[in-house]
């Protein structure tokens, strides 16, 4: 018998699971995340996978990984560097080694370290033997053999049995970090309900991994990370990814608006999960239409909106490019429509599975003519829920297409979310036009609400309100075709004024000391890294204010004043400075851009260094 293992208390851990695309690393990560969420830690995740479904096995491009950061306190990012790496093969080790700080732990599957596998990634000798890993605490584990051994009585072929090695690894990690296991066992039995022998094999491998940790001296230490009680508001919580939160937000918006939800979409990474998710909820009256192309996706959504549905189209940047003409039509028709862009690396096909924020200007201006469209962006995975409701509010209230800019990082990342009460969700009910709106008993489809400038939404089937709308310029009020110069000028300004007049909340600036001279302003998914970096800088005594933009069009009314209060404004973005360009143009403020377009989110520590330097420089420049 070994001596009872030592238990160490930690306040936070970053784990990265890495393996071949076919090794099931995303599933392993998801399960560990679910266990961790159920345990009550705060957490944030970063899946990272290749665009190829199955890149050649054992190669560097084929490596898929899943990073999870969990803690006993409030955290904002998936972590800069892993404390522990699980490497299922040499490629996974080689691809991730550079990210590991000295002293990190590595669990390697030694079974895969054959000469041939090493050669595939350019290693002539095994890094397990040649000192490459000297700086790390390495746990060599024959994961494949041990899994096959544990399943020798399962009746499965050796090949099938070996496929459960990710569950062995999950079991081992679950033991190391004292994760609850019932959820995973229940999950496996549900997932493989139709193939009970596979369910049992996976459960057996999972338990074998746990027991391996318990009994092997190689693992002398296990870790506890206490639940993050203070990080959460009281109430029920679940772990949620951005795309799931966005999908639920859309269903909730339709329910709160008492309108049927219609999604017209063409599959595209990383947005397809929303199509998949909404397709499951037909009992909410949700209609999902997988169109022949991106253009038909938005066309069908717009047609449904004309018919009185909450029309939504979901896509990524390349799809937005194709939808531009129809978005312009929606601007001209003044019908509600949600355009959800899960941004990915561009230009062109770019980096389908990586994240970027480079569609901001496309959303703002990517149409012919003056075609203003409101734009908003969620800040975190869970925030995608609220952002979807807010986007629906704007679309329905102002009868306009609305851009919702999420990105690959938010879409696939996850975090705990306090489940809201339905009653606390905004009331989005709309009134369709039901009666003529002119003294002579006629109906003018472009007669506007004086406050919102929205036009009436008169849906087919309403007697007496028959009308024709189209993309040709129309006379304000009557909606009749008009080529009159003065009317066109009026209409262009009116459509702009309608969007400019959309009610959005003021920007909240976080400036705890009240005397910061540097403002760090972000938008979208950079919220987590910026907030984490800012708190690092403050912890080190730096003075810095921070604010985050939800609404990019229109901007909050107090934005200009907020920018002018600071000597320097730093805008970190995952593009080449698109928000910075807008701010400079709009407010004549000399904002500084800090940009990164690597397809990966900012690392908090690197961002903290940039912020610190900017803060110092600002202080050094003397008084205002």
């Amino acid at each position, binding site marked *: 018998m070994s001596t009872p293992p030592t238990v160490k208390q930690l306040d936070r851990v970053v784990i990265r699971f890495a393996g071949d695309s076919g090794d099931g690393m995303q599933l392993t990560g998801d399960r560990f995340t679910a266990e961790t969420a159920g345990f009550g830690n705060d957490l944030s995740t970063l899946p990272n996978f290749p665009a190829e479904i199955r890149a050649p096995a054992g190669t560097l491009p084929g490596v898929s990984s899943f990073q999870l950061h969990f803690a006993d306190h409030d955290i904002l990012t998936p972590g800069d560097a892993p404390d522990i790496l699980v490497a299922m093969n040499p490629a996974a080790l080689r691809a991730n080694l550079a990210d590991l700080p000295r002293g990190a732990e590595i669990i390697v599957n030694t079974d895969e370290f054959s000469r041939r596998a090493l050669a595939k990634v350019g290693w002539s000798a095994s890094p397990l033997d040649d000192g490459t890993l000297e700086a790390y605490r390495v746990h060599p584990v024959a994961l494949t053999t041990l899994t096959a051994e544990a399943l020798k009585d399962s009746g499965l072929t050796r090949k099938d049995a070996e496929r459960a090695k990710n569950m062995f690894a999950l079991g081992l990690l679950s033991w190391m970090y004292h994760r609850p296991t019932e959820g995973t066992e229940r999950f496996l039995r549900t997932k493989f309900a139709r193939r009970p022998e596979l369910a049992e094999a996976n459960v057996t491998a999972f338990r074998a991994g746990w027991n391996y940790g318990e009994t092997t001296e190689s693992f002398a230490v296990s870790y506890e990370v206490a639940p993050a009680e203070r990080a959460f508001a009281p109430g029920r919580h679940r772990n949620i990814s951005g795309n799931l939160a966005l999908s639920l937000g859309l269903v909730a918006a339709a329910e709160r608006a008492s309108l049927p939800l219609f999604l017209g979409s063409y599959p595209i990474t990383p947005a397809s999960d929303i199509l998949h998710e909404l397709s499951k909820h037909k009992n909410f009256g949700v209609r999902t239409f997988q169109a022949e192309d991106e*253009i038909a996706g938005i066309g069908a959504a717009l047609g449904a909106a004309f018919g009185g549905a909450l029309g939504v189209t979901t896509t990524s940047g390349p799809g937005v490019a194709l939808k531009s003409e129809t978005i312009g039509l929606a601007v001209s028709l003044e019908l509600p429509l949600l355009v959800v862009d899960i941004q990915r690396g561009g230009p062109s096909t770019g980096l389908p599975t990586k994240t970027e924020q480079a569609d901001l200007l496309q959303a703002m201006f990517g149409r012919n003519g003056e075609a203003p469209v409101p734009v908003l962006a969620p800040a975190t995975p869970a925030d995608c829920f609220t952002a979807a409701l807010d986007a629906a509010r704007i679309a329905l209230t102002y009868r306009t297409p609305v851009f919702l800019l999420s990105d690959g990082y938010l879409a696939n990342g996850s975090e705990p979310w306090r489940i809201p009460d339905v009653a606390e969700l905004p009331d989005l009910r709309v009134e369709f036009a039901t009666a003529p709106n002119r003294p002579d008993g006629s109906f003018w489809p472009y007669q506007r609400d004086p406050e919102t400038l929205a036009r009436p939404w008169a849906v087919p089937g309403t007697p007496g309100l028959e009308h024709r709308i189209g993309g040709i310029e129309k006379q304000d009020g009557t909606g009749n075709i008009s080529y009159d110069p003065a009317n066109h000028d009026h209409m262009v300004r009116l459509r702009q004024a309608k969007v400019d007049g959309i009610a959005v909340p003021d920007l909240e600036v976080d400036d705890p000391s009240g005397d910061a001279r540097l403002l760090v302003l972000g938008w979208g998914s950079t919220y987590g890294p910026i907030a984490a970096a800012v708190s690092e800088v403050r912890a080190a005594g730096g003075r810095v204010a921070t604010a985050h933009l939800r609404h990019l069009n229109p901007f909050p009314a107090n934005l200009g004043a907020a920018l002018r209060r600071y000597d320097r404004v730093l805008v970190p973005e995952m593009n080449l400075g698109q928000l910075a360009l807008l701010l400079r143009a709009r407010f004549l403020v000399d904002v500084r851009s800090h940009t990164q377009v690597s397809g990966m989110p900012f690392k908090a520590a690197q961002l903290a260094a940039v912020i610190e330097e900017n803060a110092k420089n600002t202080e050094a420049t003397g008084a205002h």
Partner: protein
Amino acid sequence: MPTDIALTPKDFKSDQEVRWCPGCGDYAILAAVQGFMPELGIARENIVFVSGIGCSSRFPYYMNTYGMHSVHGRAPAIATGLACARPDLSVWVVTGDGDALSIGGNHLIHALRRNVNLKILLFNNEIYGLTKGQYSPTSERGKITRSTPMGSLDEPFRPLSLAIGAEASFVARTIDSDRGHLTDVLRQAAAHQGTALVEIYQNCNIFNDGAFDTLKNPATRDDALLRLEHGRPYRLAPDAEEIVHDVEDPDPTAAFTLSRLRHPTPIGVLRSVRRPAYDQLMNRQTAGAVAERGPGDLAALLAGTDSWTVRG
């Protein structure tokens, strides 16, 4: 859907001045459609005309129903969304040879294969009118136009062959000036469950005048036309065998053969087969989901299956 309301053609005329070129075949089609609409027995508010871009696409403005003049080629996609969201409506698409077969070809074929409940009126004048006279995807090869001064090089589409290839369940052809025939075809299209494609030979008297003259001229038309009627025999050539026309034949071979025929040119319904309409299937799935799982419970959906409670 039919109601007791008694409407007249006049009820379907909007207050907008019709602005096609004098003599355009579109006028005849508009008059025929407005003349036919009362027969449908559908209230005006339950009828929607959707169009794309082109001369013919101005059509919805002249119909006193609901209507949308959309963007080039996209009418079938927009109408698909509308018909799926609102299966209670009678949705008509008005399009031209450029709109439907060139820029919007993809949407047309997919609408046809899905069999969405749309009535598509394809005004085929074998030329681009609104952009002033370039050749279209149905122009004959060698067509001299402003964009092809030495003659066009591409082989034209035969719209009905394309439609049959795209699994269309209803395919017909008629002629703008033959009001009786046009109305009869519209009647059959309207009664069809799913997508009905009606190709209407339409004269552009400005850029392609007389394209269909042999089919219209009383002196030549009897020889030039093959008038198809379900259950009636026809011959593909004067000395060919008689074939009894069966629009309901599940095998599209005979209809396809007819769609290739030029001399004589078949008019009438080539094919009309029963197949469930896409919008009905979609709404049946939605209803089935409700029947199976009950109406959606938002609170339960938000809660999910894997949640935990944090106490304050």
